[in-house]
């Protein structure tokens, strides 16, 4: 109950600032451009694709392109959303309101996180409107589309969990943003090193750690519990860390 009250206020605050609107607008614009170009490519390739035995459809070619780019854009955008969540409340001392209210730290963190998820879900759905518009023109692989939406949402949920945690660490929103971005980028590229090292064991571990790999498998429609578990574990770890960090505020030495 209390979690939803907090989430609702968080969302409201997001939309009262121009940040949320501009993020939605810029993302939509860039992805729409990408969507149209890849749609154009798809249409011009259509005659050649026809000659293949089982030609890839619009969902695999066009839509996957959109979601792949969206994931990349989210990597840059989510830090901007999460940076202020805790650090700004600390700076304005408004966090005292939450600490003095009959709330547990878990409720505070979950409330904030849920508010962020609400925004990210909205962003994911808005992006999904573009592929869905193709339904006017022809059939789509809806199962695959759903898998892609789920993958994107889980990915951004992970981003938000890291961002929230790093926001609890500092008073400066910009520092929270840049460190979140750094962490996300590292997770994104961590398996590159594995590829080059040629060491099978090491590359296996790094590949497993890489958030991108899990995203890619899931968005290809391979619904494996390992990936889902990876995402959920990832989110839980950072939420628990955030709760611990917030609790440490009270115990500071």
């Amino acid at each position, binding site marked *: 109950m*209390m979690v939803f*009250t*907090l989430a609702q*206020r968080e969302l*409201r*605050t997001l939309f*009262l*600032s121009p940040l949320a609107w501009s993020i939605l607008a810029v993302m939509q614009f860039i992805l729409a451009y990408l969507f149209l170009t890849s749609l154009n490519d798809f249409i011009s390739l259509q005659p050649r694709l026809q000659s293949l035995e089982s030609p890839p459809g619009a969902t695999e070619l066009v839509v996957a392109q959109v979601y792949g780019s969206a994931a990349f854009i989210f990597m840059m955008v989510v830090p901007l959303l999460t940076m202020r969540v805790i650090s700004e409340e600390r700076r*304005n*001392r*408004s*966090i*005292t*309101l*939450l*600490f*003095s*209210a*009959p*709330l*547990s730290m878990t409720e505070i963190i979950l409330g904030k996180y849920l508010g962020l998820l609400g925004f990210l879900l909205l962003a994911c759905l808005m992006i999904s409107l573009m592929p869905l518009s193709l339904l006017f023109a022809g059939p789509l692989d809806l199962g695959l589309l759903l898998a892609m939406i789920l993958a994107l949402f889980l990915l951004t949920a992970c981003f938000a969990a890291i961002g929230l945690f790093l926001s609890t660490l500092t008073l400066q929103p910009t520092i929270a943003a840049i460190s979140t971005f750094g962490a996300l980028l590292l997770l994104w590229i961590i398996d590159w090193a594995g590829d080059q090292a040629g060491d099978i064991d090491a590359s296996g571990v790094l590949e497993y750690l890489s958030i991108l790999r899990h995203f890619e498998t899931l968005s290809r429609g391979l619904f494996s519990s390992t990936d889902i578990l990876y995402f959920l574990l990832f989110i839980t770890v950072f939420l628990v860390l955030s709760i611990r960090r917030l609790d440490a505020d*009270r*115990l*500071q*030495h």
Partner: protein
Amino acid sequence: MHNDNLISVEHLYRRYAGLVAVRDVSFELRRGEVLGFLGPNGAGKTTTMQIITGNLAPTSGRILINGLDLLDRPRQAKGEIGYLPEQPPLYRELTVDEYLRFCARLNRLRRDTITAAVDRAKQRCGLEQVGRRLINNLSKGYQQRVGIAQAIIHSPAVVVLDEPTVGLDPIQIREIRELIRELGEEHGVILSTHILPEVQMTCDRVQIINRGQLVFSDHVDNLDRRMQSSSLILGLQQPPAQNILGALPGINDVQALDNHRFRLLHAAEANPAKAIAQQAVEQGWGLFELTPEHKTLEQIFVEITSSEQSDTGTEAA
């Protein structure tokens, strides 16, 4: 009797790395009481308040709020407290109404009582006119009032106010003080402040904290008694020699303030004003001023805190 204690704090300690911010503080707050918390900067006032309100964990000690242990049952205990920190915890992008509704919900008020609670808090803090304005656009005084409204919205048993009148204009200060007195009738109020007359005007009991320790805790009336004058300001058109004044009965010492005005120190028990006036008239000194000097709370404050320091100094030696 015990049930009347809204707050009881027992042997509170708080250490920061190498520094003891609060040392063995114990006190009680009864229903219908306004408790003034005084102390120089860095004495541990705010730390103590943060501990009582659950914003900071004590190193050791026990805090009971309306009979609920703050450390064992933080949720229930926090529901009994309203806290206005030094800087009001406002969401500036919300309107006053939105903000207060949010605060009411945070304090788990029932949905159907929220509107009434918000209206009542607004009315008590004089916010009826600004309900739909953004907090960010309000003046400092109004923001402060919103902060107080937030602290009393759930009619807590205890209201803790940390320097509530800082930055307000004199009229607003008077209104806030009246509000504090009013709150003190139903709730228990703890008020921390630098402004000493404020304590005299609003508080029933005063506690002075210095370097983390309570050094003084008494009823305001007793404090007033300590403030009773032991000096007079005497103004004479044709003053006699200073030693003649010093020889007047009951006068311990004379300090010349300028050519015509003197400060006469006397024993606290006996007031020699009448004798002096008589003398002045008989001798034709041209009396134009004779006022008892009240010791300000400042002086008492300095006396208590500095005597405490010299006490600890001798202990150390």
